[in-house]
């Protein structure tokens, strides 16, 4: 699913944010990505969701080498990746419904399918009453759930989330993690960057730990799986 080989990354001519990152994530796997602030978690995710290119090394996603993939093929690859951004990146002038519907619309999904799926998912994340609300009128937690709904609406093969539970209470965090696990059981590969040790411990999934741009630890679950 995802292969990084000796990947390095820097922004412009700045210092290397990621160094010699090598990792292989199998299809259908679930990983936490942990590490202190500034360790490079968000940059690693940006490489995974094709927002940035590596400065060196090789990246392969869905079996395709990113360096040799034509630009015209990138949108189709991105549509297989769901992303929950740390700052949500909701479009403020669109309603919750329209924000969640975006991935389906850019994929030219039929209007009826869009309506059914988006309504169902917004109900599932507890936002049925806020379907027409615009993001600025929603609380941080509600915005986060809209962002998560937008990331999963297209049933992505790869789900990447940057601190997806940072603004919600424990009950909702637990529920959202269950959603990610359900998607994972359906075959979606999941990578969640988080500071939340409690969450990592509670869900007992393998995790990758980053320190100063390098992977320092790759842990398998206590249960021994993975």
């Amino acid at each position: 699913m995802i292969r990084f080989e000796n990947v390095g990354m820097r922004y412009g001519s700045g210092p290397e944010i990621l160094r010699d990152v090598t990792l292989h994530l199998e299809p259908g796997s679930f990983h936490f990505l942990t590490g202190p602030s500034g360790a490079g978690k968000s940059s690693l995710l940006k490489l995974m969701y094709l927002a940035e290119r590596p400065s060196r090394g090789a990246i392969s996603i869905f079996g395709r080498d990113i360096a040799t993939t034509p630009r015209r093929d990138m949108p189709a690859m991105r549509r297989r990746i769901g992303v929950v951004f740390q700052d949500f990146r909701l479009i403020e002038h669109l309603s919750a419904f329209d924000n969640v519907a975006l991935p389906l619309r850019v994929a030219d999904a039929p209007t009826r399918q869009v309506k059914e799926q988006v309504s169902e998912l917004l109900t599932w994340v507890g936002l049925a009453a806020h379907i027409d609300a615009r993001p600025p009128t929603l609380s941080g937690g509600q915005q986060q759930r809209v962002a998560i709904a937008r990331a999963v609406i297209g049933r992505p093969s790869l789900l990447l989330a940057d601190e997806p539970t940072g603004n919600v209470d424990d009950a909702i965090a637990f529920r959202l993690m269950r959603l990610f696990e359900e998607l994972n059981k359906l075959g979606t590969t999941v990578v969640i960057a988080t500071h939340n040790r409690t969450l990592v411990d509670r869900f007992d999934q393998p995790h990758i730990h980053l320190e100063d741009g390098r992977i320092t630890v790759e842990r398998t679950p206590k249960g021994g799986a993975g």
Partner: protein
Amino acid sequence: MFRPHFDLPLRNDGSQRFLPLIVALMVYLASLAMGGLLVVHDAVGRWDRGLSGTFTVELPPAPDTGKDDGAVESALTVLRKTPGVESAEPLGFERTAKLLAPWLGASIDAGDLPLPRLIDVKVDPRAGIDTAALGAALAAAVPKAVLDDHRRWLDRVIRAALALETVAAIVVGLVALAAILAVVFATRTGLAVHHATVEVLHLIGARDRYIARQFERHALRLGLRGGFIGLLFAALTFLGIAAAAAEAGVVRADIRFLPALSAPPAQWALLLLLPPAAGIIAMATARITVLRSLRRMP
């Protein structure tokens, strides 16, 4: 719950508020240039058609003695013998004076001025009359007789008209270029203002064409709106000019000092193409600008 036409809030974008006004101004200027071009083109065509079957023979003024020197009859004899001449009609003093009235006034006395005697000749344009030979024959029959086929005057007018048409075409081209630059600037500003939203669309898998479509539809709308506003003001200007020219150009009901500002309706209808052209230029420019900008994204 309805599907919005725009994922990007371009309609509320203050950076593009002035684009319709700029396009309106451009279309207004282009309309004036094109309208002028049409009028000149039509006037030259009418003069050309009107003069292509006519000659004027100019004979020296009649002698002071008041006796007929037979010059007019001699010239008419030469003309009537020439194949292709359909009619040859001497202009009496009254008609000559009437032609000169706009310049000399209506009260010309026959004895005051040594007016040349004129013969209005109508010919078959297809006959291919040798004007040089005819001129020589007339000069042989009547000394100092001159045959004027109006070609020299018309050639000068046509050259001047061509120069005007070239200038008008350059003006239209420059106006289109200025409109393109305005749209490029507005589109780039829009891209900068909405960069975050564009990036989100890009990252969730929107193709460049999907994003560009939003800008191009918006530009089309603004271009059309500006185009029709510009054309409306141009139409009002033309009506004003036509009214002023009619008032200033007509000396008497039957004598027109300036040519009428007119062109066939089909040619005026060409101006109706300017607003759609402005919209299409704006749309295409926005599309190209956005696609080129997006190409810089990974």
